[in-house]
């Protein structure tokens, strides 16, 4: 079992430059972003799009295995942020986590809509093959990506999980499968799936709780 899928920038695509090295989006800065967006500061939205798009695109692309659809999801996420910024609740983790959550939820919605269209078995086959075609990262330009520090922490937390738990998290959290779908795909009882997920998430909650700021 491998860690959650890592997307790799194809060679013909642009990679963000190193100009963002050392920038730091603290909780305070993130709050400032939220306040600026609330004040309808279009420049703030553009800055947020510049910073967060690579991460959101990575998530949606890894989940959907479709670049065009992934870009649509990212656009929808920013649209929701811009139009519903008044609903931002700092208690739920701040602006960036909200953006991550929206992106993941939209991707899951699309995955499930896709499943409804194609049929369950076809979807399973597609997921298996697409997961296998995701190429691991090869010497990514780490400094070019704001937030790399968070990625490393989360990735370390995931790779620290036992193989079976990591597999369950990947299928549930990053591929949008339900308990019963995971059980069916892996050929194990649903109770086992739930146990693996509960144990995995308990460990992840402890590890991820230490992440306070998003280093950019």
């Amino acid at each position, binding site marked *: 079992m491998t860690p959650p899928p890592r997307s790799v920038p194809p060679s013909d695509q642009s990679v963000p430059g190193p100009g963002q090295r050392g920038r730091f989006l603290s909780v305070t800065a993130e709050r400032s972003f939220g306040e600026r967006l609330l004040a309808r500061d279009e420049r703030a*939205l553009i800055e947020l799009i510049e910073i967060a*798009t*690579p991460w959101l695109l990575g998530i949606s692309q890894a989940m959907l295995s479709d670049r065009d659809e992934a870009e649509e999801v990212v656009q929808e996420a920013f649209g929701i942020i*811009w139009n519903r910024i008044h609903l931002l609740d700092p208690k*739920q983790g701040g602006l960036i986590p909200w953006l991550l959550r929206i992106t993941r939820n939209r991707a899951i919605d699309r995955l499930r809509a896709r499943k409804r269209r194609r049929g369950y078995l076809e979807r399973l086959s597609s997921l298996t093959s697409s997961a296998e075609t995701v190429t691991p990262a090869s010497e990514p330009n780490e400094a070019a990506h704001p937030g790399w520090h968070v990625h490393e922490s989360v990735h370390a937390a995931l790779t620290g999980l036992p193989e079976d738990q990591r597999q369950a998290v990947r299928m549930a959290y990053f591929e949008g499968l*339900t308990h019963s779908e995971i059980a069916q795909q892996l050929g194990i009882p649903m109770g086992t799936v739930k146990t693996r997920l509960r144990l995995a998430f308990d460990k992840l*909650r402890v590890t991820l709780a230490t992440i306070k700021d998003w280093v950019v």
Partner: protein
Amino acid sequence: MTSHQWFEEHRTAFVARSLDPDETASFQDHLARCAECRQAVVGLERELAWLPMGIEPAAVRPGLQRRIANDVLGINQWQWNRMTTLAVAASLVLAVLTYGLGRRQIQKVERQSAALAQQVRAHQSLLAALEDTVSVMRGASRILQASFKVSNKPGGLLIFADERTHRWNVVVHGLPPAGPDQVYQFWFIQKDGMVRGAVVHPDSTGPTFLTMGMPPGGGEVMGAALTVESMYRPALEPQGRMLAHLML
């Protein structure tokens, strides 16, 4: 397991969205009634907030961020391009119209200016002629007058003689149009005979004015005469009817 225990155990699964659809619906119903579970779910969402960052960032296709910004802010690329195109087209049309209108205006002014200049030149010529005529009248040393009748209508011949400039100003009035093949001929009377002067063309609207110099040759002019002559047989001496003659 009580109902609430089941929800307690599935809070994380709910946050991870890994419950089956019917389980999700049940959980949402429960959340609406259970403050403890609502608070716990909020806490779980906060704790797992960074989990999506476990996936590496993807390279962004050129122009994607701008397209997203434009779309979210309500300016899509098509509108942007259309607005830009329209703005450029409008500028060009405005420039062409301005140039065309300006050019047409300039041409109109040029035409008006040329017409006015022509009118001024015509008025200047008329004024010069009037000044010349009046100067002869004002400078006349002799004024001669004779009356005549043509077709029982009275007419007259008036001569202003300016001896300083050797010019005459001749006024003829009451002349009807000449008969077929006939003209009215003005003559200078000199010591050794008569010399042909100008042909007088009657003016139906008023008197006819003529300004003329003395005949070439330098002979002494003693008087003038007005006759009716044949148009086709001009003669050196008067052949037709004498309407009037005057002697200085």
